[in-house]
């Protein structure tokens, strides 16, 4: 334990989302006995964001991550509706928007990310989806809307397209890239998802750029005008790294941390959407998934408590659109090495490196049909795998776990 423990200022965590809360619990569960304070700028108690794009019939489901009772049992102090405004690294003090301040022995920045906004004229009028307020605003507007334009054909854009189409709206997705889901879904599966959207009546326009937004719709750069009474911008997120940058920490598309999630300052860690993590020599990666927020939060929490845990969990994500479930794990860029077809449209793509070790997998099928194989793949990442076995639907992949 560091000598600073005697100061008893404790651990301060900026950000009360999935990552910050998991970190607080992980630090406590690792045996940390000092004060733990979590500061979050949203008014609501910490809640899960994934359900925001998947409302049920009665609207957005607010799913709390934890409860005041559990926080109390774990002696985790939560300050809601408060943001951090400055960090004095010499004094080890964080200034807060309510005028208060918090001393820290160790500080975690779990500040997350915010939606990128459209830069075209009128673009700031487009709805974004990040918070529960955003979600409520979108579904309230959808009640009275007939036509919606969604700018951005990524996962959030297409999940919203599926949801709003199911509610009977006319939906057009406008994507600047050559295909939807171009950033993180293998082309073969993205093509199938796009076909499903088409079948459901969603129009997806690719390779188009928007010139302006008005309250009547969206004007494209090629001169076309798409009428809409609801415009949603789903064009990715930018990490909330300004606070870190202003205190002199290295920041570039996120707060730079080593593989133990430590910043340049050994008393300050960063994790989740806001953190750009050293993956290997000279290679830094930032992830935006729910599971990453959890996994990095756990690593950061244990390290805040004095541990020396490395972050090396393969990134995993899922997406539900209509009755289809997509899941991916690890590195699924490039062309798949093996395709495992399980019938009824269920298929898993496996990505192997030059020596036959598994680096990633992605699958698409009805409901949770791909879940088991993706979980097995997650455990096989880094192991050499038999491509013939992978491709044989009669083979239970679980056998490979004992062999690996």
């Amino acid at each position, binding site marked *: 334990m560091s000598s600073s423990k005697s100061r008893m200022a404790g651990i301060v965590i900026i950000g009360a989302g999935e990552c910050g809360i*998991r970190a607080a*619990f992980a630090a406590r569960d690792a045996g940390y006995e000092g004060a733990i304070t979590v500061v979050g700028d949203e008014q609501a108690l910490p809640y*899960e964001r*994934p*359900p925001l794009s998947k409302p049920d019939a009665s609207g957005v489901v607010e*799913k709390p*991550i*934890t409860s005041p009772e*559990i926080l109390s049992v774990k002696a985790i102090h939560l300050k809601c509706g408060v943001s951090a405004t400055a960090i004095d690294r010499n004094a080890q003090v964080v200034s807060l928007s309510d005028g208060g301040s918090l001393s820290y022995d160790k500080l975690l920045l779990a500040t997350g990310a915010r939606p990128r906004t459209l830069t075209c004229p009128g673009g700031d009028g487009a709805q974004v989806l990040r918070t529960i307020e955003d979600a409520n605003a979108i579904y309230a507007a959808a009640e009275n809307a007939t036509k919606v334009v969604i700018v951005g054909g990524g996962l959030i854009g297409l999940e919203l397209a599926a949801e709003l189409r199911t509610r009977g709206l006319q939906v057009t997705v406008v994507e600047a890239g050559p295909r939807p889901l171009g950033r993180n879904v293998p082309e073969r599966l993205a093509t199938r998802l796009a076909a499903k959207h088409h079948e459901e009546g969603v129009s997806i326009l690719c390779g188009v750029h928007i010139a302006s937004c008005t309250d009547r719709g969206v004007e494209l750069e090629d001169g076309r005008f798409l009428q809409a009474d609801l415009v949603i911008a789903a064009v990715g997120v930018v990490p909330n790294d300004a606070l870190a940058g202003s205190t002199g920490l290295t920041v570039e598309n996120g707060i730079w941390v080593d593989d133990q999630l430590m910043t340049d300052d050994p008393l300050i860690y960063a994790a989740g959407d806001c953190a750009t993590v050293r993956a290997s020599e000279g290679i830094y990666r930032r992830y935006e998934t*729910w*599971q990453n927020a*959890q996994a990095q939060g756990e690593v950061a929490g244990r390290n805040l408590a004095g541990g020396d845990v490395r972050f090396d969990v393969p990134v*995993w994500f*899922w997406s539900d659109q209509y009755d289809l479930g997509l899941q991916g794990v690890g590195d699924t860029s490039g062309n798949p090495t093996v395709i495992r077809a399980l019938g009824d449209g269920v298929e898993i793509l496996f990505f192997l490196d030059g020596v036959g070790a598994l680096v990633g997998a992605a699958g698409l099928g009805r*409901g*949770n*049909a791909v*879940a*088991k194989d993706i*979980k*097995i793949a997650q455990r096989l990442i880094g192991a050499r795998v038999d491509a013939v076995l992978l491709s044989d639907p009669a083979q*239970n992949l*679980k056998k490979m*776990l004992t062999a690996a």
Partner: protein
Amino acid sequence: MAEWIDACATNDIDEEDLIRFDHGDRTFAIYRSPNDEFFCTDGLCTHEQVHLEDGLVMDYVIECPKHNGQFDYRTGEAKRAPVCVNLGTYPVKVEGDRVFVEI
């Protein structure tokens, strides 16, 4: 009143795996452990009511197919976030090649 229900044959379930079992308007999961023991829990994950039938069984742990919450299926104990509420469990007995659950 709970009663013993003939749920399935022992070899309907692979070793270290589970099947779904529906009875009336209730749904359950029946597990066969790596040591050839049988267990029964509620079918739906306590996190978001996703059925555990597509989940992965490893040793004595079932991992939810959707959000990776884990339970010990012998006791129903929630083992990993995001789950924090335990699963209900039900007595199981094997007679011959049949699996009975008391539900």
